């Protein structure tokens, strides 16, 4: 049952994603991309669970590597997006 719910969620999220982005002006394509790239770092949740296992040797190491990479993706991704967007904002105040 849970599996069907997951698939259901996936399908609805796909439609939502298409709706959200279809009318973005081209000026914002880069920030949108790097912002959504940061969101794709959500895999950090899976990495946390894998790295936090109490047992499991190789599995834990793999989780640890995943966690480092996902954190770079998340932290770096949000920060560069913020940097880019702040530039767009700054000149609006002129």
């Amino acid at each position: 049952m849970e599996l069907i719910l997951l698939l259901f969620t996936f399908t609805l999220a796909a439609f939502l994603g298409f709706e959200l982005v279809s009318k973005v002006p081209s000026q914002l394509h880069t920030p949108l991309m790097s912002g959504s790239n940061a969101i794709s770092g959500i895999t950090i949740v899976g990495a946390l669970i894998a790295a936090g296992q109490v047992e499991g040797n190789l599995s834990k190491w793999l989780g640890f590597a995943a966690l480092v990479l996902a954190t770079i993706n998340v932290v770096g991704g949000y920060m560069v997006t913020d940097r880019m967007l702040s530039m767009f904002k700054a000149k609006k105040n002129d």
Partner: protein
Amino acid sequence: MQFAINISYIVAAILFVFGIKMLGSATTAVKGNRISSLGMLLAVVATLARSDLGYEWIAGGILSGAIIGFIAAKRVQMTGMPELVALFNGFGGLASLLVGWAEYEKARPDWSAYLQLDENNAVPAPWFSAIVIVLAIVIGGITFTGSIVAYLKLSGKIGGTATVFPGQKALNLLVMVGLVAVGALFSITVEGINAQFLFLTTVALSLLIGMLGVMPIGGGDMPVVIALLNSFSGLAAAAAGFVISNTVLVVAGCLVGASGLILTVIMCKAMNRTLGNVLFGGFGATSGGGGKQVEGEMKGISVEDAYYVLEAAQSVVFVPGYGMAVAQAQHAVKELAEILERNGAEVRHAVHPVAGRMPGHMNVLLAEADVAYEQLCEMDDVNAIISTVDVAIVIGANDVVNPSAVDDESSPIYGMPIINVHQAKTVFALKRGQGAGFSGLVNTLFFRDNCRMIYGDAKATVSGLVSQFDE
């Protein structure tokens, strides 16, 4: 506790949705990004609240990742943005691959015990688990090596042009078919003795196909590739979400997958090419592949003479391209634009959707140089008024202003929407030398009567014009 965690995941998903929505408008974008980062923080904190985790490894992983990410984000130049985004993207993909792998290692010793562990009863059978693990591995692996090749091309560590060799398509097809076969065999025989070997082969082939797939794609097609890989990194996260039955991964990953796909389609449309043509065309490797012979010659003009024309101009349009990024000329351009405005001219910056190496690349650079948002015009708006423009200054752009796209049916880029600078009264083309653009196509614009070439480094040329005005 599990209930509270799940509620937090729902709230995080809502924050992501609002975040992406607000990223779509200039006035709300900064806030949107912060809201989405809040969602990420919430998802992480909620996960940490699980009772079954040991925290030493987690602390170490988060700390080292955060430091690396922080330094990379602080130090990058705006011109280096495309390759950094590509790199981050690749890391996300590899992380999803590793999450899938870690889950496989958990299950491998005893599948029946593993399936009973799953209190949600999400997974009906080993083969299903195996399939979603394969998906996470394949999509994550392609995203990783594909992004790394894109990163190497964008940062100039390997040649930016398309790398093609005889039999390449056949090889790619072979690897792809092999990957599907091995992945399927692994899923069916996941409890068999060869499963681990098949699994490792799947990992290797996924990494290989990502590399082979991006190699034949040239620099000017990078905006499409980056957008597509971005979409893949989302789908990889969603696949990892199915592996560990986690809703927030599925939702957030899928949102990114869908939005990345839309961007990809927009980029393809802006080049009048299909996605298949971009991915498998090997565009730009075959130089001079079609197009009419050009008559006439390119006519140069000195910076002094260009100054006299600009001094009298009432309306000026800048058309930046990748060359502006390479020369880091954006600040000089902004300075020249200000002087021209004080001189009474109306100034616009016309940005083609695929100018540069990632979607919206030029906008970011011009924004860095403090160019007013209102002066940034999209292609269609500029084309509407282009015939009234006195001077169009093309800075390191090439294919996006090539009139062959409009009037030469035999040209490979025929039908691609361009900025019609050839209809302006005068065109100044700033160019390093006389060679063709990345696509290897001759740009007929440069041979037109109303076009004058200013050779040399774009930044030096623009600065030269600025100092002419100062005198």
